[in-house]
């Protein structure tokens, strides 16, 4: 029974994808979206049922479908495990997917590739389910790559758009962004594969339980190596520095995609991996500390870029990046369940935020520049509420979900005695509040800066707004389940308790964070509530430009990696392959041919010369004979 539920949860999205794919090349058909959403909902129901089951019994459900790869001593099955961690993810993923599917029916209404979109989207959900449910690293890798390729498809969904210069569009084009995302992820995937190899050759298996059971017997350097390699994999998927540039460019995809993939689910896969492999990371403190430090840095770094950005979706993308940093900080510090909690909570409010942004885009005819918006709250009140709510959650205002999860992370940083991290996280929290509300105010408050002749903003379809409501509700209430969640997942994950010392300061800490958050909101309010006052001097300052250009990192990558790579490739082709390798081969042939030409001159046609040659031959042979005889 439960096995069937597992399969339903897993395969319903696949069925949905294949079903939509059948109509992939035909006209837009609403029922495709509806059926896809229903199938996703089925998956959600199954996941939720499983969650209840796991919650009540406290036991994981493991199923093995069949063998996948068996060669030598390697044996990889298609095995799935539904335990506290995976079921949490499953429920979250299927829920948000369902909502995004429903949302997309409205959002993609006018797109002629409507059916194709659902096919991709469901395929993504399937991959994500595989990723979270797999009971071995190879299975995880299947999902890992699967979400990668779906992400590629979805980012590049509007593939027909032409390439633009980086000034006009920082992501150049959807297809460019898609390729960037895929390739960057591949770089990380290599690390992941190496991690798998290390584990396989030292453990002999890729099953989670086998690997974790073997950890105590392994050398520290092997563990470190595996942990680093796996984390490199996680860095790609979760867009950690320096592999972060693809995430903002991925905003070229349709907004539901951003909501589902680049906010709620796929990008958190890296965090999930660290959580999943916690027994490994738990015994590699150096690596873990590095993870935490990197996470903190990314949190701050991304938030700084969000401060000045003008693109509605990019701001949210930076905030996603920043929040992923928080999650890694938590995971790196050993608070796996807190990381997971933040992951889930973040999924809710960030998806909501993106979907809200989608509504705005829909209203503004795909305009994304918040400097060209303003005053939208009059025409799109529900969206305004949703986005405001989500931003408040993101800013970590009590009693919304973000408060509970983020605060816990910051506390953890304090608790671990990593005060630098703590300070940075606190500052970041303030910045988060600032840029979130900068965006809210610029979009919804103040003067209407858009062109009234061309743009007539209107609110999204009702059913879409209704579909978004569960997210809003969850964003509000999720925090209250923190305790329950903790007990649920810590039966699998290591428990994490604040020390006495921290308990002592807990109110103070909370107050500091809240202070920063509120301060950020206030600052934003003062600056942007009235409308946009552009400050030329500020905008021309070095820091502003640095931030606006993402620290010039994309440009750096282009100049230092892409272009040299293309140049070297060209050199290899023309300079080495054609000029050296091939020419050597042809050179031998030409040499022979030319020596043929030289030699045939011997054949003058004149008998006298022939006789001379003959005599030459004879004389040479005789001389040689004489010389040999005299020497020998």
């Amino acid at each position, binding site marked *: 029974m439960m096995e069937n539920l597992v399969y339903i949860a897993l395969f319903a999205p696949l069925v949905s994808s294949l079903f939509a794919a059948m109509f992939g090349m035909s006209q837009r058909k609403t029922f495709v979206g509806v059926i896809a959403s229903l199938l996703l909902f089925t998956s959600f129901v199954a996941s939720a049922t499983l969650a209840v089951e796991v919650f009540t019994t406290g036991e994981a459900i493991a199923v093995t479908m069949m063998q996948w790869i068996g060669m030598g001593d390697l044996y990889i099955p298609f095995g799935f495990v539904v335990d506290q961690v995976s079921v949490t993810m499953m429920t979250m993923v299927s829920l948000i997917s369902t909502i995004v599917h429903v949302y997309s029916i409205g959002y993609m209404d006018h797109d002629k590739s409507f059916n194709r979109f659902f096919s991709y989207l469901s395929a993504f959900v399937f991959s994500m389910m595989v990723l979270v449910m797999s009971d071995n690293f190879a299975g995880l890798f299947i999902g890992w790559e699967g979400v990668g390729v779906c992400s590629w498809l979805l980012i590049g969904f509007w593939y027909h758009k032409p390439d633009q210069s980086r000034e006009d569009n920082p992501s150049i084009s959807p297809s460019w962004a898609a390729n960037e995302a895929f390739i960057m992820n591949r770089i990380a995937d290599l690390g992941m594969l190496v991690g798998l190899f290390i584990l396989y050759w030292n453990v002999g298996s890729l099953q989670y339980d086998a690997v974790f059971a073997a950890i105590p017997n392994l050398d520290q350097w092997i563990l470190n190596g595996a942990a680093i390699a796996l984390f490199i994999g996680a860095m790609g998927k979760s867009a950690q520095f320096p592999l972060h540039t693809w995430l903002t460019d991925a905003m070229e995809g349709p907004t539901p995609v951003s909501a589902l993939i680049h906010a709620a689910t796929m990008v958190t896969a890296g965090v999930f991996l660290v959580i999943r492999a916690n027994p490994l990371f738990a015994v590699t403190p150096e690596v873990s500390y590095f993870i935490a430090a990197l996470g903190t840095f990314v949190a701050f770094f991304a938030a700084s870029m969000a401060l000045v950005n003008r693109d509605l979706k990019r701001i949210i993308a930076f905030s996603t990046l920043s929040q992923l940093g928080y999650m890694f900080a938590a995971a790196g510090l050993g608070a796996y369940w807190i990381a997971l909690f933040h992951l889930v909570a973040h999924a809710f409010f960030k998806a909501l935020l993106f979907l809200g942004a989608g509504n705005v885009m829909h209203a503004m005819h795909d305009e994304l520049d918040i400097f060209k918006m303003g005053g939208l709250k009059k025409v799109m009140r529900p969206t305004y509420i949703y986005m405001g709510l989500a931003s408040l959650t993101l800013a970590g205002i009590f009693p919304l979900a973000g408060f509970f999860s983020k605060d816990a992370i910051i506390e953890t940083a304090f608790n671990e005695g990593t005060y630098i991290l703590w300070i940075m996280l606190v500052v970041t929290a303030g910045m988060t509040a600032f840029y979130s509300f900068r965006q809210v105010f610029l979009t919804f408050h103040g003067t209407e800066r858009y062109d009234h002749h061309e743009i007539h903003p209107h609110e999204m379809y009702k059913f879409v707004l209704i579909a978004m409501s569960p997210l809003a509700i969850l964003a509000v209430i999720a925090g209250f389940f923190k305790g329950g969640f903790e007990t649920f997942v810590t039966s699998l994950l290591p428990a994490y308790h604040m020390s006495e010392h921290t308990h002592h300061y807990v109110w103070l800490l909370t107050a500091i964070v809240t202070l920063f958050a509120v301060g950020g909101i206030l600052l934003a309010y003062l600056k942007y509530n009235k409308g946009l006052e552009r400050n030329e001097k500020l905008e021309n300052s070095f820091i502003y430009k640095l931030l606006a250009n993402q620290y010039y990192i994309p440009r750096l990558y282009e100049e230092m990696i892409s272009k040299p790579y293309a140049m070297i490739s060209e050199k290899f082709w023309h300079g080495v392959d054609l000029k050296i390798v091939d020419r050597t081969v042809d050179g031998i042939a030409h040499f022979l041919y030319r020596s043929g030409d030289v030699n045939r001159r011997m054949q003058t046609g004149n*008998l006298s010369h022939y006789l001379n040659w*003959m005599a*030459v031959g004879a004389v040479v042979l005789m001389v*040689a004979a004489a010389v040999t005889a005299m020497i020998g």
Partner: protein
Amino acid sequence: MLEPINVSLESLNLITLAPMLIAIAGGLIILCIDLFKDGLHKSLYVMLTVLVLLIDLGSVIGLNLNERGFFDVILIDGISIVSQVLIIVGSIVFIPLALSSKRFHEYSYPEFFALFLFMVAGFQFMVASDNLILIFVGLETASLALYTLIALHNRSNSYEAAVKYFTMGALAAGFFAMGSAMIYALTGSIEIYKIAEVLGTRIGETDLMIAIFGGFILILVSLAFKLSLYPFHTWAPDVYEGASAALVGYMSVVPKIAAFVVAIRVFGMAIDLGIEPIRTTILVIAVLTMTLANIMALVQEDVKRMLAYSSISHAGFVMAALALDTTEANTSIFLYYALFMFTNLGAFAMLWISRHKMRRFNNRYDHPYEKFAGFIKIMPVGAVIMGLFMLSLAGVPPFSVFWGKIYVMQAAVNAGYIWLALVMGLNSVIAAYYYLKLVVYMFLKDPIKDVDTIYYNISRPLMVIIGFATVATLGAIFYIQPLVSYIYYMISASGY
């Protein structure tokens, strides 16, 4: 006064002489028929020749192994039987090429066929003796007949060819005689077995080394001329170009077999005596021959000329086997030529049927590559067959020459000359280029001139011949085993 000499007829072992006598008699019969009646069609003479040769072949096969006859002048050992069989078979398969549909000058002479038979007899004498005199006389008989046959084609080029061949042949004859004189001076004998005996006793005299080398070198020069080894090959391309294709095919196989037999007898003996420089010299010449001939063949514009160079190269290939002087190597020589013969027969027959009587393809050549451009479109079957022969010559398995090559290379490997096998292999690659060139022209290019056919000269007998050559080339794998074992048995029985 001398005692009267009594010779019993049995001791003469006349049967050993029978094959040659049959060929000579056949020639005489043809001359007589010509005396009695003029203007008989060439087909009569061709068939008579074939018949005579068949009887000849029968008598050769009937010979007992390792016999001497006629005051030990005639030596019937395995090598001579094998080579006679090959010579006669080669003659049988080549002479019907005379039955082309067009009339060519030489075939209007009954004497042509008589000379042909005399030539065969000459080759037979050459291989069936270890007496340098008989070898020399047989060689000259055959050569003189051959010069005449070339000239009889009766056009400017064929005279030129005959003159070149003849003159160089005369020089080579001088070297042969001089070499023989030197060997004779060293050993007091002109019979190879005896030479070996005496030389074996004199090999230790260091002062004599120069003369010993010199003697063999001079004979090597003359045989190298006959075998067209570098740098004594210069006649070959011109003669091949000037002579008729039918004869060239023959020339590139049969005289060489005869010359190889002599070479095996002379140099095999020398190498057996431990005169290493001779082996080295032969190896050097062989490698030079196969390589340089190959690269010269690369740049040829005419197929027949290319085939001339290629047959030079093949001779070099086989000559290398000779230097190895093992039973396998000697076997491989005959195997190679047996297999090469069929392919060569086919290739030259194809050239022969494409020969236009008068019109040349361009000012210079009869068979330039361009002539075969787009052959596949003009005549698919002809193109496929010609392609087959080319691939066989290039040594692509499983066609006949491949087995010869592999056997020669195996012999080289077995004798410890792996470098030689490698050189052979690489040379095959170079060679493959020019064979492929023809294949490329035939299959991959469009016809240059607007012709419907270039089967100018085809006739049913020629088709039969080509069919036979094709089958023999294709099906080599099926008769290699009996062929190898027969040749090996014969060679080892005669102690080489």
